[in-house]
């Protein structure tokens, strides 16, 4: 005879569906598949901000990135039962997010239509306002150069630096061999260096003209 959902459980366990905050991603996803909101909230706490960082650097717009993150978790809730464990849960979540970002970019066909205040501000302003202004300007410059990288290189760079994904996981998310991930990452770094240098030269020329 089956036991009804939550019957005979401690009240805390009933609320959490038997999950604890220290559970593995796989066990949380299994609970999501059985309809546990608590498990989904746990996954959101773990990966929400990282996915947001990934999405915002590809889309260039915090509002769009937030929508993509919520769509990712709704899609994860729908598809949790289909997860076969062929890759890690976080690689799976990033794959969903990447597909949603690609769809959105295809629809928009323009990377930066929103203001980029999100990437400009310094979270811990230094006491020296001049230093603070320089840091903000430099951050904006880096963020803008990242957005100018070719799509595949940008995705690889963002997944590695901001998502902390392993090379194998990035290969799964991007559907390419690990060797390609390495070469894309190396290309992204050298290209970014060139773009930043070019940007600095342009700024110097502008200052000279003024």
């Amino acid at each position, binding site marked *: 005879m089956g036991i009804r959902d939550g019957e005979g459980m401690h009240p805390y366990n009933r609320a959490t569906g038997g999950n604890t905050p220290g559970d593995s991603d796989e066990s949380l996803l299994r609970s999501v598949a059985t309809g546990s909101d608590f498990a*989904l909230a746990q996954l959101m706490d773990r990966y*929400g*901000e990282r996915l947001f960082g990934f999405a915002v650097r590809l889309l260039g717009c915090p509002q769009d990135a937030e929508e993509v993150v919520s769509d990712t978790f709704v899609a994860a809730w729908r598809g949790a039962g289909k997860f076969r464990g062929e890759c890690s849960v976080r690689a799976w979540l990033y794959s969903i997010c990447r597909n949603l970002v690609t769809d959105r970019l295809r629809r928009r066909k323009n990377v930066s239509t929103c203001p980029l205040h999100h990437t400009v501000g310094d979270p811990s302003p230094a006491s020296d306002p001049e230093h603070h202004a320089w840091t903000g300007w430099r951050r904006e410059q880096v963020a803008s150069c990242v957005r100018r990288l070719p799509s595949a290189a940008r995705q690889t760079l963002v997944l590695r630096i901001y998502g902390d994904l392993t090379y194998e996981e990035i290969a799964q998310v991007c559907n390419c061999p690990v060797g390609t991930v390495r070469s894309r990452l190396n290309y992204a*770094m*050298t290209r970014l*260096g060139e773009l930043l240098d070019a940007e600095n030269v342009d700024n110097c020329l502008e200052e000279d003209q003024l």
Partner: protein
Amino acid sequence: MRNRHRIVKRLIGLYAIGDLSPVERDVVSSHVKQCPLCRAELDRLQRVAEDLRSLRTEDRLSPTCKTHVLARIRQMKASIGQEQSAHLAGWWFLPLVQATAFVVVARLVEARMLARDIILPNVMHQLVTVAAAGMFLGFLGIAGALLCQNRAARRLVP
């Protein structure tokens, strides 16, 4: 030297973000000591890596996002429950029709057999009664399930 330079070019970006194996790291660092071009490139890329990492602290997802997702999921659960209820509600009459049809056919067969002076064994009577009772119980079960689902759907919507 030129060959080594080419190899290092393919690894220098990964060196800057600390992604090389110890052997590869040694190859790059020993070359960089001798090659001023690669040393300058490495300095530049290490600054880039530092800048990239400094942007990481800014990823702040709005606290309402989680609430928004959970609310969407609750709504979806409720709508799925309602869809299932509607689907079942469309077929509520089926067991009733089946039960009635079964009883009518059984009675007709019985009457025809009696007209031909064929006496129906008691087992047949019992079978007909049990089957009809089963059909009615099925009907009651579906009605009960519908009722529970409607209640659950109402509970899920905040």
